[in-house]
């Protein structure tokens, strides 16, 4: 260092992070300066080493950062998937609420709403509600306007708008009378004010919308806010009370006309054989369309008239597919055909059959004692499919899931409880999860595009997994079980959960959450037990090397430990001795098993408990060495104890950290702390172990 300063005494700086990361740093220039100002190989070599160190350091911190980011990414991904399933559950709750509300609504609706099948599922409620409002409105008009009883006779008529208007004389432009005008989906009704009598207005006329020519009066001298209607031979001028109401009326007329036009077009398209729009010039005041309808009565085909009876037969003979096909044919026919009273009568009868069929199909899916469930889900397929086609996918989904629940329950009862817990859990989780997977497939086949059903299904799976978790907890945690078996059982369940994910049902976190407290508690128990037994065994320990009695047994022992990853050759003395206590020999074996099982159980959430357990146990063992050394033992025994401590803190510890890193990608901080804490035990005397800390410090793994 002095040398370099001597030789240049100026601006070639020592390489460090700030220099290298400064913006105006230019490698070429820096190297040129260096080689100019530095004399001699050693100096250059020193600088190179320094730069190399810097590069390694940067590398390490980069790795650390990447790892940290990665962990954060994983955590947020997990969080997202939890949120997703919560949203599903919410959606399910909402759709349940919705159907509850609808069922409440339907019970209070008086208006008959036949042919439910015609409407798509989600339109249903809306339409019903509007029908209700419309019905009430029409009824209130009936009460106010005298002489318009026929108003309700046209079933498709809906109320759109009303308002007071002043009628003007077409020549004089003076007000003749005040009227109340009502706009319906098919016509405009004019009612005049009634001086006497109970009702406010008297029906005057009804103009059909299909021939009502409306004119926006833009300029009529000093008359403002007026519009005309032209229905030959009438020309009538009406005056509104403001520009806005006039605009409103004109817009309503326009909208009503457009709506009617699209409806008419649909009708016309579906019934091409009907004569194209005969000129509709109706006599004003003719509301009665009955005569017109009378002559089409005979037009309905025989199959249509006989449909209700035919449906009865199909349902009785359980030819459900035929029944459904016929139902659909009827619906199609009704949509196109002339609406008359015969048609409505048949529709009503068919509706009853529709309900019958639904009931029968729902019965098929219901679970009753006595009923054989041999067919399983496959047997339900037809009923489910037909129910969906009938527009009852929610009910079908509900019944389907109930059936699934029932079938799963049978599996719980059937799985034999004898034998070890592990075997039982293996069997049971295998059966339950396979079934759930199978049911998921079946579900996806049955209900491919209904989001309401999909959320219902997720909620169902969630409930099933809760049930399973509870069952699992009862079996596994409430009875004595070894950590190995526990780890194996839990590993198995996790594997199954993961498999469910491939179907898009990610509920691992839920099962994990249910088990977590129990696993944590179990770990704590194992921890306590282990520490207890360490203390107990230490009492009997007389700190002697292990005598393996024969060369043969020694090599067998060495092999056994080598397989676990512990190379003990350096601890051999003589032919049959190992400079490790029997206690430590056993400890290292059981500790490695503990570690393996812990690592098997590992999840981010459990890591804390796991670290605690392994470090507590390890510390309990190493502590025994500290105790014995502080008691002031003889010199030769001291060396032996230190040698043992060194075995634990280096040989075993390195292996443990390696395993830990293999699984998690980073070393166990807590174990490292213990290593640091007790490193004084071995550094005091043994010169060979002085560099343990740096050599085995876990930094090198990053």
């Amino acid at each position, binding site marked *: 260092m002095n040398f370099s300063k001597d030789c240049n005494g100026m601006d070639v700086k020592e390489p460090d992070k700030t220099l290298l990361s400064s913006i105006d740093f230019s490698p070429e220039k820096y190297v040129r300066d260096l080689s100019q100002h530095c004399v001699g190989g050693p100096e250059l070599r020193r600088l190179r080493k320094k730069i190399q160190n810097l590069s390694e350091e940067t590398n390490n911190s980069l790795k650390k950062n990447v790892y940290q980011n990665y962990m954060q990414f994983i955590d947020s991904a997990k969080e997202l998937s939890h949120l997703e399933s919560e949203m599903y559950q919410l959606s399910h709750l909402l759709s349940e609420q919705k159907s509850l509300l609808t069922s409440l609504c339907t019970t209070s609706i008086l208006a008959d709403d036949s042919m439910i099948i015609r409407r798509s599922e989600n339109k249903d409620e809306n339409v019903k509600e509007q029908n209700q409002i419309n019905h009430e409105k029409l009824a209130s008009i009936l009460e106010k306007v005298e002489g318009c009883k026929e108003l309700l006779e046209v079933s498709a008529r809906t109320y759109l708008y009303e308002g007071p208007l002043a009628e003007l004389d077409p*020549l*004089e432009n003076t007000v003749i009378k005040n009227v109340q005008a009502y706009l319906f989906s098919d016509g405009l009704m004019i009612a005049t004010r009634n001086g006497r009598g109970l009702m406010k207005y008297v029906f005057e006329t009804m103009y059909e919308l*299909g*021939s*009502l*020519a*409306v*004119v*926006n*009066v*833009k*300029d*009529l*001298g000093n008359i403002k806010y007026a519009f*005309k209607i*032209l*229905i*030959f*031979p009438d*020309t009538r001028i009406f005056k509104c009370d403001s520009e806005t109401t006039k605009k409103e009326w*004109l817009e309503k007329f*326009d909208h009503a*006309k457009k709506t009617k*036009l699209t409806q008419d077009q649909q009708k016309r398209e579906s019934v091409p054989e009907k004569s194209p*729009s005969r*000129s*509709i*010039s109706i006599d004003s005041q003719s509301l009665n369309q009955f005569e017109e309808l009378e002559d089409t009565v005979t037009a309905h085909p025989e199959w249509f008239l006989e449909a209700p009876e035919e449906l009865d037969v199909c349902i009785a003979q359980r030819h459900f597919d035929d029944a459904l096909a016929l139902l659909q044919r009827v619906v199609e026919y009704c949509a196109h055909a002339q609406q008359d009273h015969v048609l409505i009568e048949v529709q009503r009868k068919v509706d009853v059959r529709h309900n019958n069929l639904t009931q029968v199909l729902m019965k098929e899916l219901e679970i009753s004692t006595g009923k054989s469930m041999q067919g399983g889900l496959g047997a339900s397929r037809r009923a489910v499919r037909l129910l969906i086609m009938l527009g009852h996918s929610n009910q079908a989904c509900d019944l389907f899931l109930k059936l699934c629940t029932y079938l799963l329950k049978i599996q719980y009862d059937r799985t034999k409880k004898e034998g070890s817990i592990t075997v039982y859990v293996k069997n049971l989780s295998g059966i339950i999860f396979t079934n759930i997977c199978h049911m998921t497939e079946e579900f996806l086949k049955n209900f491919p595009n209904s989001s309401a059903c999909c959320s219902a299904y997720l909620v169902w799976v969630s409930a099933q997994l809760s049930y399973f978790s509870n069952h699992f907890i009862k079996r596994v945690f409430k009875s004595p079980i070894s950590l190995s078996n526990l780890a194996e059982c839990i590993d198995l369940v996790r594997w199954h959960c993961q498999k469910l994910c491939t179907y898009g049902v990610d509920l691992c976190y839920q099962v994990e959450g249910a088990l977590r407290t129990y696993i944590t508690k179990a770990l704590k128990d194992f921890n306590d037990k282990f520490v207890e037994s360490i203390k107990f065994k230490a009492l009997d320990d007389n700190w002697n090397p292990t005598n393996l009695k024969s060369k043969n047994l020694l090599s067998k022992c060495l092999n056994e430990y080598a397989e676990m990853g512990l190379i003990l050759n350096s601890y051999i003395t003589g032919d049959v001795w190992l400079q490790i206590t029997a206690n430590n020999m056993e400890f290292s074996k059981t500790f490695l098993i503990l570690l393996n099982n812990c690592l098997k159980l590992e999840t981010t959430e459990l890591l804390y408990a796991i670290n605690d357990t392994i470090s507590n146990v390890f510390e309990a063992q190493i502590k025994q060495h500290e105790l014995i050394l502080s008691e002031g033992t003889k010199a030769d025994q001291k060396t032996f104890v230190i040698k043992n401590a060194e075995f634990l803190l280096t040989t075993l510890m390195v292996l443990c950290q390696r395993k830990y890193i293999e699984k998690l990608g980073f070393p166990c901080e807590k174990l490292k702390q213990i290593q640091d804490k007790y490193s004084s035990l071995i550094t005091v005397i043994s010169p060979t172990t002085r560099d343990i800390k740096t050599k085995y410090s876990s930094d090198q793994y990053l």
Partner: protein
Amino acid sequence: MAKKATVQPALHKVIMVGSGGVGKSALTLQFMYDEFVEDYEPTKADSYRKKILLDGEDVQIDILDTAGQEDYAAIRDNYFRSGEGFLCIFSITEDESFQATQEFREQILRVKNDENIPFLLVGNKSDLEDRRKVTFQEASDRAKQWGVPYVETSAKTREHVDKVFYDLMREIRARKIEEKTVNNGRGKDKNKKKKLKCTIL
């Protein structure tokens, strides 16, 4: 009734027909308010009224500006029924609109059931000579065939705008006078017949 009628000047009802965008509204507004509207906003059905002096006589004109597009035939019939004379407009820059006049003519004749209904064939947008698609010749040939006058107008330059409205009103007025005399004549005839019968008896 008769008293009131004398107070109000005679009312002539004119209807503007023709395809969308040919300039029905533009012609109407030019005639009514001497203004030209550049923007195109499709009409539904607008009516205007104006007092004018026709050959020294006070009259009122009622213009019904209809939509180029009307979906209900029945509604269109009702519009047409209310008219006493028709300006059938097409745009000389658009052949389709010229072809459509044939259809309008037929509909009007069907609805009014009168071959001699006051009617003018109007070729509008004459200011757009460079974009002309319909020759004067073919348009006037068609008018001749129908027995109606053909006039070319421009709502933009106001060329012949007053002419088409005034010409049509004159025809309407002439028709009304004619009808009156025919009716009166017929009435006289009837009276004559009755009288004849009486005398026979």
